[in-house]
């Protein structure tokens, strides 16, 4: 026997034999082993030794089980002996289920479907809303915002001076870091490119809790003004652009036209926030550090261990109030809000969309549950005799109910793997529907998948659902008089009336639930379709877009910026196949915006009073022509609207109507007032153009004004190019070449057709619309199956009655009508209730979500028709079977 086996055996025996005997036992074994070896040879002795060990261990195991049962026994065998009874019941239930495999399969699949869709929506909410950030410190990270209750938008960035004050004063946080969007132009080496970067303060990396993969990360020392030209590369950027060279550390690269030293590489997979590729140090110049009225920073805080969000909020509210009192103008109405990171950075529209989907999934589960209830109810009629017998033999009603519920719970448990499969499949479909390019904008998308939390959630879902659906049938099944049921032997001319009514009620409930879900999914799909293809106020087809951002170093002054746009438009205009080209500071549907406070000439707005903020777009003369935005009054910009000419503006129709009586705005004046001390020049309105849809969620047909770029140069010119042939993507290469002729180092980002841009913008909604569509179809299918099985069951139960009717002279048409009438009544009642629910739901959706679609009568009629046709089709089969009843056979059956 080798060493380890011996040690193992000794250990085993040590565990199995009480301590006073341990040594003796081992000694005995040794002594007898020697004997055995002498008599029968070593290998037999070894076998003997092992056998003896096994015997000892088995004996010990037997003893411990006996001890355990005898010590627990007093608790087990009190009264009704609950535990033993439970095991017994589980055994009985398993046996009962084994006798009806068909039923079990149907229930399990239905349940798996209902629970599966819920599991997938749960998983999405979990990954996208509850914990979208896979950061080491995610559970302690918070987001701090300056919040003005008067503003519409929930999230507000923070001004540098306020941030520095918070950092100095707040005690609730271990780290308080800030970062700023930095759409960085990387030049030198290969092709210039724009990458998503962030300028972060020195505490950023400590706050999120990551360590460098190479070199070092940005620290407090890098924040000092003048020493802040350092960058950290993401692993992805390092691999892709710098060939994963380790000697990149210390090298100087050109970002935004300026030299930056690479100090480190972030660990693989770290790309917070928003799939960042580059982090620069945020070093505020002395003036900038004092800025309190311009807000550009996002602030995150790492809560001290043991500090709650509530405590942090209390402290920050106090600090906010002090700062408001000290700087009443800049911090007017500003309050400090502390959110969890996940909540603070969440897309505002996301939760309500996911809520909608979750509600849809719950509806599907409800309908599935009603189906199962109905099935169990029908089944319990067949088991009437068995149940009556149990009751007659003295089983308490509670026990029989428990038995039936237990059967259902077992089916629920068994359906978990299939439900997880369903959820996995659903998630794969959703993942495939989302373009890879856009995933970065959905925080947590990467984490979507089946994990431990999902398994637990699914199991709970399935168990609760299975128990709930079995309650009504179980209670109902046991409410019978054993006397009568036993005598009847489970057979009667017509099925019990009460039960029948209950089953019908369940089917009505299904119909009532399906309709709102169908309406909601129709609304969502139609809405998603209109987002992308509906009227936008401009003509997207045939337009190529391209975005640039000029580096501040080379394009510091207005003249250089103006010249860049001049030359770019000139070059692009020469490209063969270009019908027209225009420039705009912000493309529609990109989700970006820029607004200015404006003062209308002659309005009574007192000095310092709140001025309305209106979206501003800087455009070239031919922008409206290129986008085909109609000029309704006056004129578009012309080449004559130059820097020296009279400052002019064009307003959108909504703006004209909002600020000037009857929209007569041409010739009127207004000005931008960034700073009350130095208001901008008066702008004369020269034209009114049609409204455009800029953001489907919040800025649809919002008032907007346009100014010419020659009078207001921009650093972010975006190009729109209308193709003469109608295929904008064919122009891509030539337009890019034109751009590089103007500036070799100027990269272009997002060269794509306007239609593509729209599609990207609405991809999420299309996914949601698709999900709602799938949920709606599932619900419809389930409801149809439910109605079908009810009718089939009713027909089989009424065979005898139908036989009598036919024997008495009812013809087939009559019998057919009899069954169809029953289906029709159920449907009508269900639809009536469902319509009411649908209206309520549609109102909620219109208000909270899209606003693009209202519940049109057309849509309702279509949905109701679809429901009626499918359910009627489902009821025809059992109805026809009823007509084929042979009275002679049916009557003899009883």
């Amino acid at each position, binding site marked *: 026997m080798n060493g380890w086996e011996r040690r193992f055996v000794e250990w085993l025996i040590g565990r199995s*034999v*009480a301590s006073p*005997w341990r*040594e*003796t*036992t*081992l*000694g*005995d074994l*040794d*002594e*007898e082993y*020697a004997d055995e070896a002498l008599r029968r040879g070593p290998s037999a002795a070894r076998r003997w030794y092992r056998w*003896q060990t096994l*015997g*000892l261990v088995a*004996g*010990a195991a037997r003893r411990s089980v006996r001890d355990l049962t005898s010590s627990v026994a007093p608790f087990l065998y009190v009264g009704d002996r609950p535990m033993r009874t439970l095991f017994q019941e589980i055994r009985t239930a398993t046996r009962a289920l084994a006798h009806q495999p068909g039923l079990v399969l149907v229930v399990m699949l239905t349940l798996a479907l209902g629970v599966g869709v819920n599991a997938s929506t749960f998983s999405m909410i979990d990954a996208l809303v509850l914990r979208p950030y896979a950061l080491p410190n995610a559970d302690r990270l918070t987001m701090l915002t300056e919040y003005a209750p008067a503003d519409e938008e929930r999230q507000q960035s923070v001004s540098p001076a306020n941030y520095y004050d918070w950092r100095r004063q707040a005690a609730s946080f271990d780290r308080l870091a800030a970062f700023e969007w930095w759409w960085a132009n990387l030049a030198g080496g290969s092709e210039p490119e724009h990458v998503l970067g962030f300028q972060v303060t020195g505490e950023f990396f400590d706050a999120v809790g990551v360590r460098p993969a190479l070199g070092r990360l940005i620290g407090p020392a890098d924040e000092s003004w003048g020493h802040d030209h350092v960058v950290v590369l993401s692993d992805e950027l390092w691999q892709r652009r710098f060939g994963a060279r380790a000697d990149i550390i210390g090298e100087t690269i050109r970002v935004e036209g300026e030299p930056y030293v690479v100090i480190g590489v972030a660990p693989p997979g770290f790309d917070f926030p928003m799939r960042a590729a580059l982090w620069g140090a945020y070093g505020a110049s002395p003036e900038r550090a004092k800025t309190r009225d311009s807000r550009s920073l996002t602030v995150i805080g790492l809560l001290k261990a043991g500090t709650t969000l509530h405590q942090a909020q209390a402290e920050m509210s106090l600090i906010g109030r002090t700062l408001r009192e000290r700087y009443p103008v800049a911090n007017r109405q500003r309050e400090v809000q502390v959110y969890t990171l996940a909540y603070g950075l969440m897309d505002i529209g996301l939760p309500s969309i996911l809520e909608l989907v979750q509600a849809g999934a719950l509806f599907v589960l409800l309908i599935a549950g009603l189906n199962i209830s109905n099935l169990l109810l029908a089944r319990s009629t067949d088991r009437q005799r068995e149940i009556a017998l149990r009751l007659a033999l003295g089983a308490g009603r509670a026990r029989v109910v428990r038995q039936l519920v237990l059967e259902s719970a077992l089916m629920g448990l068994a359906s978990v793997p299939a439900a997880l499969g369903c959820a996995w499949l659903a998630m794969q479909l959703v993942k495939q529907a989302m373009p890879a390019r856009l995933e970065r904008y959905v925080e947590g998308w990467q984490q979507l998948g089946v994990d431990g939390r999902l398994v637990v959630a699914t199991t709970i879902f399935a168990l609760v659902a299975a128990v709930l659906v079995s309650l009504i049938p179980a209670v109902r099944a046991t409410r019978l008089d054993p006397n009568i049921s036993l005598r009847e032997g489970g057979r009667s001319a017509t099925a019990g009336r009460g039960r029948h009514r209950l089953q019908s009620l369940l089917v009505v409930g299904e119909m009532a639930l399906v309709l709102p879900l169908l309406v909601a999914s129709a609304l969502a799909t139609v809405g998603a379709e209109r987002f992308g293809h509906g009227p936008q106020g401009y003509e997207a087809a045939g337009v190529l877009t391209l975005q640039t951002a000029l580096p501040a170093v080379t394009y510091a002054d207005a003249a250089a910026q103006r010249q860049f746009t001049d030359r770019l438009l000139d070059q692009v205009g020469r490209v063969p196949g270009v019908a027209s080209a225009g420039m705009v500071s912000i493309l529609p549907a990109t989700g970006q915006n820029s607004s200015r406070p404006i003062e209308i000439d002659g309005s009574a707005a007192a000095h310092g009073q709140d001025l309305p903020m209106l979206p501003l777009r800087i455009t070239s003369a031919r922008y409206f022509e290129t986008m085909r935005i109609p000029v309704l009054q006056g004129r578009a910009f012309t080449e004559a609207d130059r820097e020296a000419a009279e400052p002019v503006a064009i307003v959108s129709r909504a703006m004209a109507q909002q600020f000037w009586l009857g929209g007569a705005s041409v010739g009127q004046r207004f000005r931008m007032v960034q700073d009350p001390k130095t208001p901008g020049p008066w702008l004369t309105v020269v034209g009114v153009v049609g409204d455009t849809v800029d953001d489907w969620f919040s800025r649809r047909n919002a008032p907007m004004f346009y100014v010419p770029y020659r009078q207001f140069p921009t650093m972010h010119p975006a190009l729109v190019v209308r193709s003469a042939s109608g295929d904008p993507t064919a122009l891509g290469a030539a337009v890019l070449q034109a751009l590089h002729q103007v500036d070799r180092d100027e990269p272009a980002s997002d060269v794509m057709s306007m239609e593509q841009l729209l599609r990207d913008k609405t991809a999420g909604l299309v996914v949601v619309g698709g999900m709602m569509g799938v949920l709606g179809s599932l619900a419809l299918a389930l409801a149809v199956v439910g109605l079908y099985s009810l009718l089939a069951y009713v027909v089989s139960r009424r065979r005898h009655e139908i036989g009598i009717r036919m024997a008495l002279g009812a013809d087939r048409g009559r019998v057919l009508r009899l069954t169809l009438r029953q289906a029709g009544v159920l449907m009508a009642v269900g639809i009536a209730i469902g319509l009411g629910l649908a209206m309520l739901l549609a109102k909620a959706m219109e208000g909270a979500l899209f606003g693009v679609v209202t519940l049109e009568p057309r849509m309702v009629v279509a949905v109701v028709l679809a429901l009626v046709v499918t359910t009627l089709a489902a009821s025809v089969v059992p109805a026809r079977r009823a007509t084929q009843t042979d009275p002679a056979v049916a009557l003899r059956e009883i």
Partner: protein
Amino acid sequence: MPEAPYLGELEHLLLLAILQLEDEAYTVSIRRVLAAKAHRAVTRGALYTSLDRLEGRGLVTSRLGEPLAMRGGRPRRYFEVTARGLEALHSARAALANLSRGMEIPEAASLRSRRP
């Protein structure tokens, strides 16, 4: 004087074996005697448990011997019957004697011959 303790069958055999072995009564030899003379193969666990029980009831005492090389340096556990153990044996023998006095136990073959 309290009534003499009752003996189970295995206990009875064990006490006899210990007496028989005199100074050499330890676990291995006890098992061997049982096997050889009473044709009883006792499992190790049952042996130890029964010996334990006998000791607990005060019918035997045990002591550990010297560590032995042939036992991997482990001692033997020797057993000795106590006075109370002897009492129990006497009372059990008396009971047997009382029950079988003046009686001849018939041969098994005689039962078979009486069968119809």
